[in-house]
């Protein structure tokens, strides 16, 4: 049995690429996330990875994100916020929180 993770590439309102992840990311499937990111061509504004529907993210997933920190933006939920803060990822990657009021979107 593998962990359920659905990765859906797409585009944001500004036309930038968006990768939407739904499910859980752990050691078992972090490589799928890495592959999906790496499949997306580099762009400006950079790739947005929408993690707001991710219920679990572990250090394997974090490592994937850290390695690509310079070319991604993140959208997360309150569930993952503490993890991103604790790991320090939030300091080097732009993180947009879906639970925040819309006017802080940036």
């Amino acid at each position: 049995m593998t962990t359920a993770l659905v990765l859906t590439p797409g585009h944001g309102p500004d036309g930038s690429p968006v990768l939407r992840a739904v499910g859980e990311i752990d050691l078992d499937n972090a490589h799928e996330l890495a592959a999906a990111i790496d499949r997306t061509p580099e762009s400006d504004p950079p790739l947005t990875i929408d993690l707001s529907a991710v219920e679990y993210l572990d250090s394997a997933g974090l490592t994937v994100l850290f390695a690509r920190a310079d070319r991604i933006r993140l959208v997360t939920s309150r569930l993952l916020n503490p993890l991103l803060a604790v790991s320090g990822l939030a300091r080097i990657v732009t993180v947009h929180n879906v639970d925040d009021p819309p006017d802080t979107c940036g």
Partner: protein
Amino acid sequence: MGQPEGVEYEPPAAAGADVFGGDHEVGRDLAAVDWAATALGAPAGWPQSLRTAVSILLSSRFPMWMAWGEDLTFFCNAAYRRVTLGRKYPWALGRRASEVWAEIWDDIGPRIGTVLATGRATWDEALLLFVERSGYPEESYHTFSYSPLRDDDGLVVGMLCVVSEETERVIGERRMATLRDLGSDPSAVRTEEETLAFATRRFAQNPYDLPFVLTYLAQPDGSARLAAATGLPAGHPAAPVLLPPGGPAGGWPSAYAARAESELVALDGHAFADLPTFGRPAAPTHALVVPLLRRGDVPAGFLVAALNRYRAPDESYRGFVELAAGHVAAGIAGARSYRAQQRRADELAELDRAKTAFFSNVSHEFRTPLTLIMGPLDELRTRLSDADPRTREELDVIHRNGLRLGRLVNTLLDFSRIEAGRMQASFEPVELAAATAELASVFRSAVDRAGLAFTMDCPPLADPVHIDRGMWEKIVLNLLSNALKFTFDGSIGVSVHREDDHAVVTITDTGTGVPATELPRLFERFHRIENARSRSDEGSGIGLALVHELVRAHGGTITARSREGEGTAFTIRLPFGTAHLPPDAVAPAPAAPTRPSTAADPYLEEALRRLPRTEAAAPAPSTDMPDGAASPGGRSAQPPARILVADDNADMREYLGRLLSDPGYRVRTVADGLTALAAIRADAPDLVVSDVMMPGLDGLQLVAALRADPRTAAVPVVLLSARAGQEASIEGLDAGADDYLVKPFTAAELLARVRTTIDMTRLRNRHMQWRTALVDSLQDGFFVCDEHGDVIEINAAFTAILGHGPENLPYRHPQPWWPERTTDPEAHRLVADALAELVGREHGSCTIPVTHRDGHQVWVAATFNRVQEPESGRRVVVGTVRDVTAERHAARRAAALASFGLRLAEAVSLPDALTAAMAELRRLWRAGTVLAVLFPSHGAPVLTSTDPDQDWDRLPAEQREAFTALRTHPALSPVTDRADGIGIVLEHPGGPLVLWIGRQEQRPFGEPDRLLLSQLAGRLTQGLVRAHQIDQQRETALTLQRAILGPSHLPEGFAVRYEPATRPLEVGGDWYDVVALPDGRTGIVVGDCVGRGLTAATVMGQLRSACRALLLQDTSPARVLAAMDRFAADIPGAMCTTVFCAVLDPADGSLTYSSAGHPPGILTHGDGTTVLLQDGRALPLAVRTGEDRPEARCTMPPRSTLLLYTDGLVERRRRPLSEGIDRAGAALREGRALPVDELAARVMADLASDGGYDDDVAILLHRHPAPLEVVFRAESGQLAPVRDRLRGWLNRCGLPTPTVQNVLVAAGEACANAIEHGHRDAPGARVRLYATVTAVELQLTVTDTGNWKIPGHRDDTDRGRGVALMNALMQKVTITPGSTGTTVDMQLRIVR
């Protein structure tokens, strides 16, 4: 099959006989059985199940037997053979069980039948069975269980009996109880009858060992009388009331009393044909006849104790009966000695009374005033000799009556002497005819004057007759005086002649005579013949009585013949020789014949005065004194009295000397008080006559000085003074003078006073001598103690008992025999207590230890009376002491044995028994330390000590060697050759045991101590064996209990505790159970059966199984309990069992429960809120069946804890149950942060009282949710499902979502680490996640089999990043690498 080298081993007798290899000896005998001839056939063909059963049987060291197959063929093991089978071995092997145990088959057959039919085990405790294993039907007790044996197909084909023989215990306890009761007589002293009644009641309580008991007491004539009986109705031919002297006449030979040994007697005579059976199948066949012996005493009788025919009359049985008889004998001896002592005390009191009566009535009341009447009267008569006739006549009347009164007083005096046995006679050989004629002739003139004829017929007798002259005078003169009084015409005659070996003296008259009706009372004291005509109305009615007594004192007789109006004849018959007289009163013939004394004068005078006055009687003033004594110097047999005269006036001194020398006194004169005192002290005279007014020491001071000195206190003093008046004389008498004369006094007056005083003194001295003789003849020690507590008199027996003689009298207080505080504080305290108790009492008694002059301790029973000394009026204490040391030792031994037995009986384990015994030994011998060293067959010696700090290694080497040497000494024989203590060796179940009693004080260790110690050691040996058996039985029982009281494996999240009550073998009926139900829920049960012991335990086992089975069928607690009602109704002893039954859903904590009279469950929430589960309650089980039971629901919130328990946890005597429940709730609340198992221990500890629990206690704890345990293969694909389960569990823990997420990530990292390492090193290895929660804390553990390399500073790798995450998200993370794997522990406090 392995065979030990060098051990002899016989080859198996038959093929397949290797089945008997479990035991060498029994196995060999089993192998020798001709199995082919039995229903089982040859062993080679036995089914495996039988082979297994036999091999288990043989290898067990617990007594067992089994029966197998259609014939119930008998097998047993070595332990059973030894303990129970007796002579039936090896005959019994391979036989039908019904044949082996034919005599008890009625008892055990149905039990075995039940086992075979139902497959259910039986249980019997101490069942009485009459087995025939020693050649006779024997009363025996067995605790045993029959359990079914199944064959290879599971069918019940036999049964196994595990048995514990309890005969010795049951019977020993029964006998011990009787002996203890016999020794526990609470009243101090009782009569023989009470003693026997007490013992009889005790005997009656034990009809098994003493079916009937007869107590015969020996009578003086050699017969024996039935004094007490129990077990037989009155008048039963086996219990005749009187046994004639000599041979057996339909009863018991009365001569048994004279034997020293007990004797076994068969009850086969005609008298025993109809004996009762005493609740047993048949009547007793033998009796033990035991003499009632006391050491140093003749047997008081004997005791017949019928014996239990179902017990061998072995040494122990006989010993028991003899001990019981010993109790009776001791009781009788005690009662008798008490009675004898009582009698002696009465005698002393009587003596005292007679003495007091004598002195107060006679001397003071009569003699003194009489002297004071007669003295002045003489003066008056001389002075008024020529006064008018009327005056003289009146003076004569006074004088005559004074004389009469004096004679009366003297007669009374004689009587009191005779009565008190004080009449000191001196019988000398006399020619009786001449002596009597001489006396009679004195009366001739008076008879003549009365106009009567006086005939004397007194030819000399060939042989002398022994008489006391003084007494004989009184006899003859009284009779003559009497004759003269009642004879008005005719004659008076005196004759003496011989008749055979008697001298016969007859005095006849022709007087008025005595009516025939009065004749028999003639010699009665104070009996007067009314209306008899006589010369005078005077008459006390005492003269003839005195004559009668005096004749009797001579060993003679006096008779009277009389006819009214014709006259009277008195005939005295005296034997010749001296055989009839007390040897010490016989005196040799006087050197010269003596003249009749002046004693006749008063009689004559009186007689003459009664006659018509034809001529003037010539009174003889100097002899007219009322005292009838002979010469002034006293009785003729005595030396003349010595008188010391003290007066400063030389003329007076000379006059007094002359005056007193004339009548024969030996007089010495001194001129002043001091000289007098010195002279008296140097050589005490018989009398002191002293002037009051003297220079230096005056008369009063002299008297005081004399009285103050014990040596001279008794010297009589007559004071002379010029001071007249009553006050002066009172002063003199007060000072202690015996008499007081006021100058001027007449010579006659002085002589009279002197004579009186001397006579009084001599009388008193004689009395004293007699008293001393009496006192010295007492078997008991006698003492007199003055008002200061000083002992002033003792007797010979007193000296014999205490070693202190009269030479050191007086013994000042405190006397040398009192135990000293420093050397013997215990005895000192006992004596002080006893004496304090007696202070201020008029009489009393006590038993106290005193110290003999040679230092050894003597126990004496002392009695005392406080009396007033008649002479001095002082309050003194007279008392007796009796040596009761031997009785004391015997009593102490009996008491020690009883209390020792009690302590041993109370002991609940082997060490307990030893410790109790040692404490008792220490108390008995007042020892410093008592040590016990056990020398086990393997290993170092084990030391037990009353001093808790000692152990073997710390003992001095010298002592260790001494103990080691002692161990080979013969058992039960005290070793006393060391100064510092006494040793004794005894058999301990673990090896030889050396007991050492260290001496604290130098008390002699005598023969009684030796005897007692070896008896105690014997008891201890038995006690230790018994305690050892109890230990083993308890272990068995506890193992059994633990095995059936609850599941051996509990699901996670539960904790249980069971604590048996502390008494031996008192296992209980408490249980708990946790049942996994098919629907995923969990059944929880805690129950409590009524009662204790294995009986309750077996009931509990059945209820537990039933409850479990019911829960598996129906998950409604109410319906389960309702079904239990019906089930319990069929099980004896199950009624009133309380049960708490609950069903828990682990998923949501919902709990359904019902309680059958059980205390409420306690639920404590994570925040400490505590609630009681007290709904759903109804009656205990089986109280009412067929009724629905209530059910309640509640939910266990996350992190809450549930406590179910039995009432032993919360029940305390005299405290409300709610208090205990509150305490349990508090313990639960305070411990809610602990893991559930630790919490269980904490609750048990918190609620235990000082001595543990009185009742057995079971508790069951559950915390919701139960810990989570997930074991998974080390593959990353496992992470998601593991996470799922963890998330669900964390939600059940009631944690907020961010916390859940943090824990999930941290746990996920730990698992991922484990998978990476596990995967790398050992593909497919297992990883374990374990999570628990308390009210306040979460704990996770991840364990793998890999070996981590903990990444250092490089935290950008995902593993390094994982550890950092764990540390950041949890409060405490510990990673413990090990050779077999790595463990990650993580903790998180739950904040609300």
